[in-house]
């Protein structure tokens, strides 16, 4: 890492010459990957990333430059190029500005690690892969192929800016990915599933991951054998846990300040108005311990916080980073995030969830003549109109779960669908998490909920 004095000198120089807010994001990241196939270690890879991103903001102009040459001449070149661009987009009179950094501290422990990953050694990591492989082979599911990969990431970041802020954060996570093809001569289904811990490997104490992967395989085979669902409109029950990705796609992206500022949201100008059923309270919270979307600071050096976005159906706030928050007249609320130094930060989600209600989960199904129960959603896309692929779904008939169905795609306009929530269960379940991809790259997120019911949704699928 660079010295504090070198960073202060760089920020003083750019802030003075550019008459601009200046921010330096410095990153050092170590990653390891082990691939296990055919009951043997098939590959081992390591990656070391190091680089810096410099951002200058003046009025409504934003300049972002980055390099992995973090030598003094490399950073000097970076600063000169950033200032040259700033001159082109809008000149200003330079002024003296000396930056003195003051480190800010937050609560430790969002990414717990009892022992350094390097100290644990490969034997324990290989044991995890062997345990998963053995569990997969004994799951009683016809498998055409499979493999398991272990990943670990140890990212250290420093974020410093010309207002004197210095924030240091360390984000550690370990992950196992199972990829598999279940099936036989009559058909096959390829999928992958991740078990993620935002923590060191030493937290993998229970055998929760074994049960997780075995359940994935069993339900994948059930889905392969399922009949396609006839497309149409019907009520949809979304199970507690990871089906909370509904909220990520149907309103999370359009509550990001970047979407509001660019005019691509149905929530523009609707603060303190009703935008959803009164049963809906949506929170985004980057401070929750043990969840994949948590960290001490965001990637602009702001402490993460709990943000209530919608309360009992009323829109309360947006997810704000520095630039887009100011464009809509709001301060950052700790939501400026980026994948790494190669991306400028923007407003992003972290752990987004629907707060628990008080409805009976069994009644939600029992009271339906026909409907769809979704227990797992695949990926999706957000925006005013969203889509979500159902990876595990069951047809409900006469208040009973009738049979598994496949090839269902949920689509809708978020602001309309949220008004159709007619039940919210009392029991919330979290999830392991995944990546969300957007203009500042892939960032770790979770999305979860209690069981909910939507009175009607459009379901696309095969004829």
């Amino acid at each position: 890492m660079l010295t504090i004095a070198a960073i202060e000198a760089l920020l003083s120089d750019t802030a003075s010459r550019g008459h601009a807010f200046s921010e330096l994001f410095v990153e050092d990241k170590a990653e390891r990957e082990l691939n296990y196939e055919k009951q043997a270690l098939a590959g081992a890879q390591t990656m070391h990333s190091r680089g810096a991103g410099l951002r200058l903001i003046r009025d409504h102009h934003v300049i972002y430059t980055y390099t992995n040459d973090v030598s003094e001449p490399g950073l000097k070149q970076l600063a000169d190029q950033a200032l040259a661009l700033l001159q082109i987009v809008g000149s200003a009179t330079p002024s003296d500005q000396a930056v003195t950094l003051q480190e800010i501290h937050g609560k430790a422990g969002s990414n717990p690690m009892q022992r350094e990953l390097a100290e644990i050694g490969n034997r324990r990591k290989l044991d995890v892969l062997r345990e998963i492989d053995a569990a997969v082979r004994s799951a009683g599911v016809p498998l055409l192929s499979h493999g398991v990969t272990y990943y670990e990431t140890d990212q250290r970041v420093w974020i410093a800016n010309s207002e004197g802020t210095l924030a240091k954060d360390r984000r550690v996570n370990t992950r196992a990915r199972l990829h598999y093809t279940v099936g036989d001569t009559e058909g096959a289904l390829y999928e992958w599933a991740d078990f993620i811990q935002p923590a060191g490997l030493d937290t993998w104490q229970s055998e929760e991951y074994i049960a997780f992967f075995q359940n994935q395989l069993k339900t994948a085979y059930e889905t392969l054998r399922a009949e396609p669902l006839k497309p149409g409109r019907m009520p949809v029950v979304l199970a507690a846990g990871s089906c909370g990705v509904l909220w990520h796609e149907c309103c999370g992206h359009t509550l990001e300040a970047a979407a509001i500022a660019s005019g691509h949201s149905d929530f523009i100008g609707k603060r303190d108005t009703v935008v959803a059923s009164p049963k809906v309270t949506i929170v985004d919270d980057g401070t929750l311990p043990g969840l994949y979307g948590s960290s001490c600071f965001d990637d602009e050096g702001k402490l993460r916080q709990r943000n209530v976005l919608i309360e009992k159906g009323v829109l309360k706030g947006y997810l704000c980073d520095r630039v887009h928050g100011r464009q809509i007249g709001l301060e950052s609320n700790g939501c400026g995030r980026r994948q790494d130094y190669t991306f400028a930060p923007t407003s992003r989600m972290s752990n987004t969830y629907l707060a628990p209600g008080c409805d009976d989960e069994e009644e939600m199904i029992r009271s339906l003549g026909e409907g769809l129960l979704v227990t797992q959603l695949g990926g999706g896309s957000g925006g005013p109109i969203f889509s979500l692929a159902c990876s595990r779904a069951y047809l409900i008939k006469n208040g009973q779960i009738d049979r598994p169905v496949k090839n269902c795609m949920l689509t809708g306009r978020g602001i309309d669908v949220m008004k159709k929530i007619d039940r919210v269960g009392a029991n919330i379940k979290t999830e392991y998490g995944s990546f969300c991809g957007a203009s500042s790259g892939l960032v770790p997120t979770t999305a979860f909920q209690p069981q909910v019911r939507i009175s009607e949704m459009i379901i696309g699928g095969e004829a």
Partner: protein
Amino acid sequence: MTVKERYEAYLRACAGRPGLWEVNGETRERQRLTAQGGTYSQASVDHQTVLYARAGETSVGYAVTQCLEDEPEKLLEEAAENGRLTGQAGMEPCQEARVSEEEKQRLSNPVMIADLARQGMKRLPEAELTIEEQIRGQWVVNQKGLNRQSSRRHFAVQAQWKGYPFITSAPAPEQIEWAGLQEAIEQMRKNLEQPSSMQSSGVYPAVLSGYVMAKFFITAWKLWDARSYVGGGGVLRERGGTQIASSLVTLRDIPVWLGHGYEAVLDSEGSDGLVVDLVKQGVQTGLLHTLQTAAALGAQTTGNAGRTAGLVKGYRTIVTPKNWVMEPGQNTEEELLAQLGEGLYIFDAFDEFHAINPASGDFNFPCNAVQIRRGKRQGLCRQLTISGNILQVLASVEALGNRLYEMPLIMQDTYQVAAPAALISAIHVTGSV
């Protein structure tokens, strides 16, 4: 000494060492400027070099670094140590004893990018424009005498209008086709101007816009990824030489596509990029290969070894396209709509990374469409889903548009696809009523 020169010197000293000791350096320099309505809003410039090593005496391991000041020995020994960890013997194929070098390119003065943005703002005053200049460099050096380097520049313009991106690329600023962007925006304006309407489910003849066809191929090119065929799988296995699509369909991957950007003379294994005919007049003719897939399937590499495919980024090389192009036809989009007569013009689709199964080609694609009556636009229908299989779509092509929609891979910028609009005889649509 440059980074490459340090690795060259180290690997020269390793000549004769058994096994494989190889480094692939990938460099990217880029500048971007975003402007709208006479003012500039954002600008960026970046430089990045990533070094990928594969090394080992009896088995190959991998290591990647961005720490350019590290000694070459450190990276190569780390890769070799990773290889030893697997304990599996076996060498990977590699290129040997070839030397070639192109002159390194440099980014232009940013004032030139600003001038280009000014030209664009005059022509497309309603759009948010992002002008980009990018230089991508590739070098591969090994102890067996391979020492190759290429450096290519391209310019790209993205015009964002009403949330829709329209993109064109060119090797030089004066070759940017502004008129094509203007026409594409006008077409979209006509679609969005239509009054809202409802559409019932069913099977309909349709025109799929170039934007929708490109969204299919940004994922579905993987049906032609040779890696899928190594284990005996692959949807197109045993279909080589047979008719898999309408005779109007020709699909190609082109490393140097004249007049457009994304030139890639070398791949990440140091092989020459080749023009690959994947489907010629509807007949299945080829797959995309790396050295490894070619060795496994008894074929020749096509120079398609890369590091990023879809949302996957690899330490090892994986199969990636360069410029994946569906050849255009003769008709304007309006002529295609006239030929369609009654049906749907599907002009927008989204969620291409989840809506299409890249192994089978099956898709459930959320989309928006315009109803066509007597060859004219009538009503705008949102929240539809089209479903089927991409091979069925290609088999039902009856006519193709004469303009290509270009779409680079988002976030990674490592390849692009381009496709024309297609008139197809039938597609299943889940309606909005």
